[in-house]
């Protein structure tokens, strides 16, 4: 079969096939996974990190880590959620490293960029409204909320990863929820 055609077949292959081939050393199959989930991993990383700054590096690291660990992945069909988990782990590493670096500065998350009413009106869907509301949250609230709701971490895990008492995490997430609900209900 022509190379071109086979490459096209790979693009439509399911995750389990691609992950299996990549686990066996097929770089082309891995490339299809990178193209299939790269964008999702990038928006996810951007959400956790809170900025664009390290997204390129973090997601690249996540893919390289994934390539190394793929031979040990037993449930190949779940490669997508596995990639997402690696991405959040890499983000947390990055956040910890950043914090260790600017310990002296006693990091000030700064005032949240408030979501303008115009911005909310321009939202096309509830998901879009949420995206915008989330961007307006203070950094710690947003980070804890993302790890809880998008990454599925427990309060305890979030506290451990971010060096916060889990009661603090709980409080931050409750505040984040209230803020998000207010913004979203206003949009509705």
């Amino acid at each position, binding site marked *: 079969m022509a190379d071109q055609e086979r490459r096209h077949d790979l693009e*439509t292959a399911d995750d389990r096939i691609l992950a299996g081939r990549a686990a066996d050393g097929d770089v082309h199959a891995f490339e299809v996974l990178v193209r299939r989930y790269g*964008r999702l991993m990038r928006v996810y990383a951007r959400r956790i990190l809170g900025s664009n700054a390290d997204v390129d590096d973090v997601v690249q690291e996540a893919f390289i880590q994934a390539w190394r660990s793929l031979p040990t992945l037993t449930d190949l069909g779940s490669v997508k959620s596995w990639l997402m988990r690696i991405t959040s782990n890499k983000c947390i590493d990055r956040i910890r490293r950043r914090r260790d670096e600017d310990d002296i500065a006693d990091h000030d998350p700064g005032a949240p960029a408030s979501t303008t009413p115009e911005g909310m009106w321009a939202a096309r869907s509830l998901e879009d409204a949420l995206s915008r509301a989330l961007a307006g949250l203070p950094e710690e609230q947003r980070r804890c909320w993302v790890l809880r709701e998008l990454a599925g971490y427990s309060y305890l895990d979030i506290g451990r990863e971010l060096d916060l008492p889990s009661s603090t995490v709980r*409080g931050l997430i409750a505040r984040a929820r209230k803020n998000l609900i207010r913004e979203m209900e206003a949009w509705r």
Partner: protein
Amino acid sequence: MTDHGSFGLEPDDLDGHTIDELSDYLDSGRNPIDPSIESSPGCRMALAALERLRSASSQMLEAEAAIEPEPEEGWITGILQNISREVRSGRSIPIPHPDAAARLAITEGSVRALVRAAGDSIDGLMIGRCALDGDVTEPGAPVTVSIDATVYWGRSIPQVTEQLRIAVFESLALHTDLDVVAVDITVHDVHLPPQADADGKEAGR
């Protein structure tokens, strides 16, 4: 945050309950039923809002990813160059040679690549992971090749898997001295051939 007026989320609005409690209550699947929550109009409004928030959350990343621009080619190339340096060689498989002084071997990774190439030569299926079960480092030891595959919709599974089995036997007999006693094929899915859903739709699940 701006005050949007009437929507109350504080204990005063929630008959003494908190958003944190209500979130835990939703997490528990509202089980067991808490009458003091369920009978409070304020709580029920807040629960509905929390549920809307949750459902929007579960869709949000996919929605954002859909409008996210394609990453730059250079970024993708960077990943691929990096991983290409890390070869998966696996076990070393000896190849007998008439000259006793010569020591030849091929890697398990290259045998997997042979199996993959054999699979790619067959129309109507796509192979995924393959494993060589048996002590391949011992010349003459029996080896079973296990292959995971999907078959395209409308193709006969017995027919294409038989073609695959033959292709794998032939290729390994030609290129290696492995004593292949069986080629086990697991078809985990039947899917539409690429032409049918080629318009950029995601085939992942």
